[in-house]
């Protein structure tokens, strides 16, 4: 009830302030940033009373106050708040890396790899097959030659296999779950994140060979991809060592240091043209494992710094959703979503049995792999950039699919954590 009152007061305050705005007032980015933090946080708290994860509440707030709803958070504001999303992604990647300990990789690495590879193959083939089979529903593929159908189906599948490290990390921070299911799910998501960069680049190169882009530009060369990956590992390792040294010898003001490192890592990755996520992931991993036991304090500082950023990040993700785009494409979106889920289930079950994992892990891991968010958005944008005309239609389809996965995924993951008994906090 109190949360509803807060939302109403917030709404009234915003209305009042907009009434007093003048022509010279400009875009109220900062005010809306604060509004999003409070409003999304309130909706997140409200969501928990319905048994939903907070991040679903944050996204719903974004949807409600963003362009699809009341449009308080307009498209220019979303663009102006992009640095917040970038910072969130950097923090998430670092945190994800810091979650991985060498001992854990030794213990669970094989199981994670087996689950990931089985799921990857099934999901990739399954989604590509659905697109190829239902091409009649897509105007730009309906009368296209076989090579084009193959190229675009593969491209679509390469984006569809992506998971959401952001949603996984956020949900694990929220619930404080740390059991085998949580660790295996996180492991698969992170390893897949690295694999996807390679797979997507390879598929894009193949697609460019099959269907050359109209202007001959765009796309990614294999050398560039190798540098993106290798360079990211190198840069991330150096950054991680720096963090580890800091933690060992100074270890003070960790809160501000956490934000600075995330900003610095993202900026260096951008300048050196290496994969941002991977850079920070490696940095987090190296920092955690080379800091001689000081990593936990730093991780906590980073989680604290990330908390308001996460709220805004997921609210902005919600604001970017376009429910109207799902409706016209539902005949293809629904089958794609279902087949993807089925493939994830089949793949993880197969992989887990192959690795001889615990029945709980075998049964529930797939729930945590449905989410999709930031990385998928980014890859969809690359497709649209390389193939401006057909890619844009494919991007709309991808965004509609991501919209459903992004909403349903966290709910499913929470259900799995609850059923497996790993849900410590309901807050």
């Amino acid at each position, binding site marked *: 009830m*109190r949360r509803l*009152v*807060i939302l109403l*007061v*917030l709404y009234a*305050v915003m209305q009042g*302030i907009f*009434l*007093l*705005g*003048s*022509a*010279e*007032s*400009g875009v*109220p*980015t*900062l*005010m*809306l*940033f*604060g*509004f999003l*933090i*409070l409003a999304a*946080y*309130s909706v997140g708290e409200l969501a928990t009373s319905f048994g939903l994860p907070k991040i679903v509440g944050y996204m719903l707030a974004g949807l409600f106050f963003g362009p699809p709803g009341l449009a308080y958070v307009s498209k220019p504001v979303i663009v102006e708040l992009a640095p917040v999303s970038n910072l969130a992604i950097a923090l998430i990647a670092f945190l994800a890396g810091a979650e991985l300990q060498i001992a854990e990789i030794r213990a669970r690495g094989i199981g994670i790899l087996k689950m990931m590879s089985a799921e990857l193959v099934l999901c990739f083939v399954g989604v590509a097959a659905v697109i190829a089979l239902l091409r009649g529903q897509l105007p730009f593929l309906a009368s296209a030659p076989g090579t084009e159908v193959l190229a675009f189906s593969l491209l679509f599948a390469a984006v569809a296999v992506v998971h959401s490290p952001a949603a996984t990390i956020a949900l694990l921070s929220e619930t404080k779950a740390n059991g085998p299911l949580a660790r295996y799910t996180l492991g698969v998501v992170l390893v897949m994140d690295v694999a996807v960069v390679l797979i997507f680049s390879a598929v894009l190169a193949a697609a460019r060979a099959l269907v050359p882009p109209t202007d001959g530009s765009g796309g990614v060369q294999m050398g560039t991809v190798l540098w993106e990956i290798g360079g990211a590992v190198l840069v991330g390792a150096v950054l991680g060592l720096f963090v580890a040294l800091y933690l060992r010898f*100074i270890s*003070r*003001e960790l*809160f*501000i*240091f956490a934000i*600075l490192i995330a*900003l*610095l890592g993202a*900026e*260096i990755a951008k*300048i050196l043209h290496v994969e941002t996520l991977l850079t920070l992931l490696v940095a987090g991993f190296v920092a955690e494992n080379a800091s001689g036991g000081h990593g936990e304090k730093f991780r906590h500082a980073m*989680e*604290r710094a990330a*908390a*308001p950023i996460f*709220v805004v990040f997921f609210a902005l993700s919600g604001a970017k959703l376009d429910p109207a785009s799902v409706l016209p494409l539902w005949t293809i979106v629904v089958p794609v979503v279902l087949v993807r889920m089925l493939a994830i289930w089949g793949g993880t079950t197969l992989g887990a049995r192959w690795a001889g994992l615990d029945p709980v892990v075998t049964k529930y891991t797939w729930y945590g792999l449905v989410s999709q968010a930031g990385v998928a958005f980014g890859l969809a944008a690359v497709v649209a950039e390389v193939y401006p005309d057909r890619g844009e239609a494919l991007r709309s389809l991808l965004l509609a699919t991501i919209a459903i996965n992004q909403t349903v995924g966290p709910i499913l993951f929470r259900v799995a954590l609850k059923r497996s008994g790993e849900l410590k906090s309901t807050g």
Partner: protein
Amino acid sequence: MSAPLLLILIAALAFLATHVAYEWLAKRLLIVSGAEYLVLGVLLGPHATKLVSPAAIEAFDPIVILAIGWMGIATGMPLQLQRLVRIPAVAYRLSLVEGLLTLALVATGVASAIAYAFQVPLQEALVPALALGAIAVASTPAGLDVAYGDGTRSAPVLRQIEVAQGMDGLISVLAFGIVLAWAHTAIPLTVRALTTTEWVVVTLGIGVVGGTLFHLFLGGETSPDRLFISLGGAIVLTSGAAAFLQLSPALAAFVMGVVLANSMRHPASVLQVLRTGERPLYYVLLLLAGASWNPDSNIVWWLVLMHYVVLRTLAKLWGSGIATWFNGAQQSVGLDWGRGLVGQGRLTIALAMDYARRDLPFADVIFTCAAASVLFTEFFAARFVRSAAAPLLAPLEQFTVTTSAVVDSVAETMTQRFPEWRSGDAPSSDERTP
């Protein structure tokens, strides 16, 4: 190298270097660190190395507004009614006179200096002069913290300096907010043009609503993480709303701080969270202030600057002395406690930045005066406080030393006379009972 990366790198290095050196400098040399960031900002800015362009500085505008709001709430939070009512009225009287005198003297002097130096009508010089007067009132609490720690200050002179710094913050932020409301010319799109009083009420209203919202938001919450999210959100919303309406973010956030301090069950935990972000934001503010500084070698600027420095110092030193003498309080706080108010810091820079980022007259002159004052007084703020308080504290310290010596001597005699008696392990009544 890109400007944002450079800024991050330099801010990080400077922050860490200063942080490591901070305690050492503060303890050994009684130096308040901070002003060096201003110099660093100047070196990075368009007037020196040109590493940070004006466009890059403009991109940091939201952070500047946030920092201004943060300094505002940090000034308002210590004003807890429960604590304030325990302070004798004379302390407020002295502080109020000193603050108002500084405001009046600096505003009058600077108005005439601007009118004379720049050959403009006095009316045109009023807004910048009043703004500079408001900025002049502010004094940094960092000096007192470094010189005597940030715990309870029971000595009357220290309490007087502390109360005066709080009062200075109140007068400074309030006067500055009123000046901005007075200079407000934008007409709302949907309602009639508002009067100055109405704009002041709107500013205060934003603060009250921000504070109430935050209070509703948290209830009795003490978890630092949740406090940080909601406090961050509330400050961003309050400062952002005030900035959007071209009002003072510092005043709105200040009011919010007062509301929070007096309505929350655990204001100490909020203060703790507030302090986490205060110093980093101040350093960022100083860096950006330095980078966006547009000084001029024109002699008339020096005239205004001299007026500001001389009149402010006179008002702080003599104003406090005269007020004390009139109230007959020189026995308890002495005549020189005003020295403890000479240092300027975070609030001065925040208000000066707020003035400079608007389309208001003589922005560069006002900013130069404030920045120069911080540059030359903040380093020595702790020494100023020490020089004001030490003569009065010396007899107290002597008394404490003598008392300790007497206690030690009695204890030693007791131990010699009664060897079984030792202060630390005297037998308890249970042990003595057979």
